[in-house]
């Protein structure tokens, strides 16, 4: 009886671990795709085979396993490598214009175009 329970526990843990491992893998891929390989021309950690990229990916994997959040991992890397390592720029006041660019440009150009448009008047 104890043996059965024991096996069951192992099995459940293994199963959830396997699932968890898959989940961590995809989280790693997602995160590595957003981080710059610091010793390459313009590649992400995901695409790079360089030593540094491999080391950083190992560290990220370990941190994901330990349950750290994406933000915590990014903060860790930014502290040591600078904001330059983030391919997705931070959402802060410094980058306000960057992130609001689509709306701003749309408004500006739309306004310029708007002068050409006649609103239909009812006859």
């Amino acid at each position, binding site marked *: 009886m104890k043996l059965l329970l024991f096996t069951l526990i192992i099995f459940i843990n293994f199963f959830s671990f396997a699932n968890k491992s898959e989940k961590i893998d995809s989280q790693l891929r997602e995160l590595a795709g957003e981080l710059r390989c610091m010793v390459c021309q313009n590649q992400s950690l995901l695409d790079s085979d360089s030593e540094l990229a491999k080391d950083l990916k190992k*560290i990220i994997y370990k941190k994901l396993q330990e349950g750290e959040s994406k933000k915590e991992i990014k903060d860790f890397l930014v*502290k*040591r490598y*600078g904001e330059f390592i983030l391919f997705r720029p931070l959402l802060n006041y410094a980058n306000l214009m960057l992130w609001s660019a689509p709306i701003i440009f749309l408004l500006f150009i739309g306004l310029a175009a708007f002068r050409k448009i006649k609103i239909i008047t009812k006859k």
Partner: protein
Amino acid sequence: MKIIKLFPMVIFCLLSYFLYWKISNIEETKELSSAMLNQNFPKLDLEIISGNSPFSKLVGEQEFIVNYFASWCAPCRQEHAILEKMSNKNIIIGIAYKDSKKNVKNFISELGNPYETIMLDENGRAAIELGLYGVPETYFINNKGKIKFRHVGPLTIEKFNNIISLLSK
């Protein structure tokens, strides 16, 4: 409307200014800055291969230099002679990156030992605490334990003197 007519030109002039600035300052911006500048020197837990000044004795007490090197790194061999000269007036701690004790000892016995202490960062994990890209890299730490400068690539006497004069200002 006047704005519509002139807007493209204004934007363009602004853009040209930025481009011009960058292109005239491109040499200065090439020196890789460090995110760790003015940060405290991190706690590194490394095995000591030789020497007897661990970081606990140095950090916050005096100025020192940390040189990341490896026996398998060709440019490190080139800079080694410079390090020997520098070691006359500076404390240099050497950290071997992704290396083995045996190879490091051979490297030192062949080229000389400029290092006050030699440590081993076998898996390169400690290097990441400094934001290392590769070897050789040299860090300059002041007597308050803050990283004041980081140099990527092999040092030359010229560069070293430049850094020292920069730091003394």
